[in-house]
């Protein structure tokens, strides 16, 4: 994949929740794309529709209208099983709450994701160790999540998301529960994953501290992207 090439694209996305009087339009014809080798931040106040947009781009939610294109193919109409397979093979997810199995070690938590890809046994263990080492947790391979700090848990979540070498990394508030130092470390890791591995990274965040790590920032308000997409350097300026 060429750096800067569009990998994932959301076009004219409209999404409605509820029906009739209770209907609420969360997104009004949003257009957005994620590119290889860059970090795209989705920012905006609560209820602005940024998480809904992330869910639609991650094929977790079907849009009411519009299309989602992954590597040139419209995936919005995929069957549930095909969307499962797409997420498994090409998308990595990082969640605010990590959602690690508290009863499994860090290695085993990563092995779960590899298991879904059919990588099992000693090969899975080797790969999980390599992934954990790549996020700086080579010395905590057998630790349980309860024995780790918030930042370390988030890095286990990133290692898990990297299982299968996904093309796109989608993260929901990855630094929200972290202190400044841990947040910085996580973002440095995200940046490395985008730049060195040429992945498209999309991050939903409220955290203004991390804008300097982004390549582009999209601000959402009431289900619309406000103004032009700006480069992070413009925001800082």
């Amino acid at each position, binding site marked *: 994949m060429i750096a800067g090439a569009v990998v994932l694209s959301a076009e004219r996305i409209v999404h409605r929740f509820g029906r009739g009087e209770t209907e609420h339009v969360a997104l009004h014809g949003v257009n957005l794309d994620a590119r290889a080798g860059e970090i795209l931040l989705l920012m905006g106040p609560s209820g602005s529709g940024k998480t809904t947009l992330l869910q639609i781009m991650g094929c977790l939610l079907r849009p009411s209208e519009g299309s989602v294109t992954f590597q040139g193919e419209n995936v919005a109409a995929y069957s549930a099983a095909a969307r499962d397979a797409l*997420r498994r093979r090409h998308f990595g997810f990082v969640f605010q709450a990590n959602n690690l199995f508290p009863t499994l070690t860090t290695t085993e938590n990563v*092995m779960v994701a590899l298991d879904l890809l059919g990588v099992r046994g000693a090969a899975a263990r080797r790969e999980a160790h390599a992934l954990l080492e790549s996020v700086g947790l080579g010395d905590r391979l057998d630790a349980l999540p309860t024995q780790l700090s918030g930042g370390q848990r988030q890095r286990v979540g990133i290692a898990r998301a990297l299982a299968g070498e996904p093309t796109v990394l989608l993260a929901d508030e990855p630094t929200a529960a972290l202190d400044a130092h841990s947040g910085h470390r996580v973002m440095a890791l995200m940046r490395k994953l985008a730049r060195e591995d040429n992945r498209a990274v999309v991050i939903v965040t409220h955290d203004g501290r991390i804008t300097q790590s982004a390549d582009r920032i999209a601000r959402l308000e009431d289900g619309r992207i406000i103004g032009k997409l700006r480069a992070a350097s413009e925001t800082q300026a």
Partner: protein
Amino acid sequence: MGRALERSVTMTAASDAVSFFGRAAASIFDRPGVGMPIRIAWRNLVNDRGRFGVTLVGIMFSVVLMGVQLGLLLGVISTTSTIVAHSGADIFIAAPGVKSVDVSAPQLERRRFQALGAPGVARAEIMSLDFRQWKRTDGVAEIVAVVGVSPNATMGLPWSIVGGESPRALLSQPDGVIVDRLYAEKLGVLRKNQLNEINGVRVRVVGFTQGIRTFTQSPFVFTSLTNERRMTGLGHDHISYVLVRVAEGWDPRDVRDRLQKRLPDAEVVTAAEFAGNSAKYWLFTTGAGASLMMSALLALLIGGVVVAQTLYASTMDRLPEYAMLRAIGSSAGYLHKIVLTQAGLAGVLGYVLGLCAVTIVVWQSRDASAAPEMPSWLAIVIGVVTLLECLVAAVVSLRAIARIDPVEVFR
């Protein structure tokens, strides 16, 4: 002090056993080659030891109760038909209306000769069975079922003779009777050659059998036909049963039909039918069968409810992780595998523990007058039923999993 120490030692031993069991299981499920769904299921179970303990106790309770109740049912079935099952006869000819071997009615001995004349009959012998009063040496009276057979008989003889003595030799002794060791105390029999009375007739205990139980609680006492007739006062031509052995190559059912035609005023049944009728008679006229089966069913239900509840609680605890798995692309089937494995593991472990307890109960009651039986086929049936019980109990959890929306992981 002694009791406290004993209790402490017992509790330590139980704790050690559980700990050993847990370590042994962990060494299996934590091995590198074990698949992730099994590993997750096992960790889910042992992570909450209190809940796991309740689950195991629930399944154990279910297995023990099912095992004991069904074992007792089998025990009752074999006890009620033991005389028939061990007779060596293929066909029984009884007075009309006789449904159970214990509840006999007199008939004329000439039926034996009528039977002998029927095609397919190789042998026909006679047996008497009637309830009489046994008087212990201390004057206490007990009711016994006196079984009279000829010392020369080839069918209907007592079996499991203690010391391996010949039943024919024992029955040939004048006034000799054979009682079972299980009931020796009840009958006040302290030793061999002890003298007692049946219906005022002096008898001598010449031998013992081991394990011939009676459902009626009136012990079987074997004696010769001559002695039996002295006790009962019935005429020489009155008997209870004609025992028939069919000739080689004949089907007992064909011979039964031929005999029934020849003896229309008699009850002619194969030994298997008579054994079944005897069991049915006692099981359904006394309500014992229905009661035992209901208890077993109740045990199954209670075990199922306990497993369903604990498994559901465990599944609800893990919903965020399951939603995460769905979000990263796992199929619903993968999650089902985890929950069903969890249910299956709990079922297998609970079953093993329960079966150990049932084995102890069966062993402890081996000398009791009502003993449960646990043949290997019943143990397997209970195992399969327990596993099914746990898998069915998992349905509630599977439904909860089916409702998981992967976007919940963002909440």
